[in-house]
């Protein structure tokens, strides 16, 4: 173990003390007597996880706000440096756990750019399919939790109900509801299961009606409008200054969408619109997310159609990159592929050596650095990945959109009422797993 945990011998650690210091009045050096400093969070039901807001209040009005983060810091970036390139996927997927496919996609595209390989067409279509489904589930969580926090419990129930339908599809495709590690460098880990087309067809038929229902419930709901309209306004200029991306930026009228502006995975060949609004308030963000779900569904439908006439492998045919061990369904439900086992165990010594090296060391990635971006549900997700030519990443930095968007919170709520904090945070939709990594 290196440095010690505490470098303040004998001093009781007061987590609020040093941070509250910045709330002293610069003129007098004292805390102002007529205001109150309170903590909102980190254990507050409406802060979307462990977000802590240090607030200075004058009555009901927020004078100053300082977001305090780090409560969910799990050292994902450090951990990836001690795992193989393929294992890295299982770490980054846990950053923004509401949109795990985006993390996986960004990381894998970065590794692929370092390797200089192109993934098979079918893998690209599947990637687009799962990422857009994931955008829908993520926006449903934003809608459901945001609704719950403002008292619209039925929206919470309906939103999570539809999310569950899609999670069921994820489980069928990847084996897991979250933290899939399904997208791997070189493609995706396995092709869609037999029942996937039927489930996808059902979903494509079901979801438009359900999205209409949410709009019927909320669009002209007087309470919903009252709580959201004109609340947490952020102008387009301020968004750009603060690096805010995703639905908050588009709700302020900037049509920035990396799927259109810097297309990847063949997004330029799909027909969809970038949703923008001009108001830049919490209500506009809600409407942007609703409409983006419809656009995502359009992409899902196109990808679904393409799957039928895009046969072929879902993993790159390169023994130095793609994972060669295959699974097949045995009498017990699942098992090793007997043909492959026979090949490495009985026929080819080279194949066995290669298999051993792939399992113990994994892929070797040439030295270099890349910054790859994808349009995650919350905005620009960037992966800055550095290789020193070994079997492990030298550095993986996740530019998480929630982390950057959360910086805008003081701008959103200073001068507003305490009650407006709730829709403000909900409209930014931060996921602390991504913020703290």
């Amino acid at each position, binding site marked *: 173990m290196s440095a010690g945990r505490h470098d303040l011998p004998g001093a009781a650690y007061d987590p609020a003390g040093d941070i509250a210091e910045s709330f002293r009045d610069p003129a007098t050096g004292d805390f102002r007597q007529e205001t109150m400093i309170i903590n909102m969070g980190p254990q507050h039901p409406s802060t979307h996880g462990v977000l802590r807001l240090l607030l200075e209040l004058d009555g009901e009005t927020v004078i100053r706000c300082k977001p305090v*983060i*780090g409560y969910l810091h799990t050292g994902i970036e450090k951990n990836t440096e001690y795992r*193989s390139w393929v294992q890295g996927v299982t770490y980054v997927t846990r950053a923004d756990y509401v949109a795990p496919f985006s993390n996986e996609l960004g990381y894998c595209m970065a590794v692929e750019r370092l390797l200089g390989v192109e993934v098979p067409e079918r893998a690209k279509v599947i990637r687009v399919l799962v990422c857009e489904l994931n955008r829908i589930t993520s926006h449903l969580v934003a809608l459901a939790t945001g609704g719950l926090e403002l008292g619209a419990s039925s929206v919470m129930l309906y939103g999570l109900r539809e999310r569950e339908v899609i999670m069921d599809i994820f489980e069928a495709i990847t084996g897991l509801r979250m933290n899939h590690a399904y997208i791997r460098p070189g493609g995706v880990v396995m092709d869609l299961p037999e029942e996937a087309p039927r489930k996808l067809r059902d979903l494509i038929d079901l979801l438009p009606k359900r999205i209409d229902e949410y709009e019927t419930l909320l669009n002209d709901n007087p309470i919903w409008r009252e709580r959201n309209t004109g609340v947490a306004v952020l102008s387009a200029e301020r968004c750009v200054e603060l690096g805010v991306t995703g639905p908050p930026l588009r709700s302020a009228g900037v049509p920035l969408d990396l799927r259109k502006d810097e297309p990847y995975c063949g997004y330029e060949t799909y027909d969809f619109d970038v949703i923008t609004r001009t108001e830049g308030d919490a209500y506009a963000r809600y409407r942007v997310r609703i409409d983006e779900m419809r656009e995502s569904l359009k992409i899902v439908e196109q990808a679904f159609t393409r799957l039928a006439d895009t046969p072929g492998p879902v993993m790159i045919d390169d023994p130095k990159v793609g994972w060669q061990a295959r699974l097949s369904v045995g009498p017990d439900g699942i098992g090793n592929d007997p043909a492959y086992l026979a090949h490495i165990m009985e026929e080819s010594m080279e194949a066995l050596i290669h298999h051993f090296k792939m399992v113990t060391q994994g892929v070797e990635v040439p030295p*270099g650095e890349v910054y790859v971006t994808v349009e995650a549900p919350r905005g620009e997700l960037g992966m800055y990945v550095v290789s020193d030519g070994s079997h492990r990443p030298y550095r993986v930095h996740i530019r998480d959109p929630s982390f950057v968007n959360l910086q805008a919170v003081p701008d959103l709520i200073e001068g507003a009422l305490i009650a407006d904090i709730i829709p403000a945070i909900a409209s930014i939709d931060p996921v602390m797993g991504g913020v703290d990594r």
Partner: protein
Amino acid sequence: MTVAELAVAVSARYPDLVLARDEATVVIQRDDLLAALAWLRDAPGVTLDTLSSVTATHWPDRDPAFWVVYELRSTALAQRLRVKVPLRDDDQHVPSVTGLFPTANWHERETYDLYGIVFDGHPDLTRILMPADWSGHPLRKDESLGGVPTWFRGATMPPIDERGMA
């Protein structure tokens, strides 16, 4: 405009530029950093008006030991440029770019927290992810992962950083 054309426009002024894997990287010394970023942000035909990310890498056996990495993006051109600033092991200071790009605030705090690089002129350079009383900067290569052995019935497995992988 392609990234190669952007690279030509930038390299006329900052020639230490590498184009690899369709990504442009320009190396800028820290004394020139603020002037360079202001120029890159405002110069016609360059207009790298958004700062996407700030981070660093640590190379303990090399000189420079630290690279501070800025990812810039031009909204008008839909192109990106990476700016890298080399830092020596005994002098980990770099000017803060929060005056040019307010978004750098948290990015720089994170880089300070995890690498110990001091951003001079930052309005509030405090730890952001690690606890306020933490000592050390965990993403430096000389900081261990701090894992503990995994216990099994009758056997243990050493922590991941002591398994001699790769």
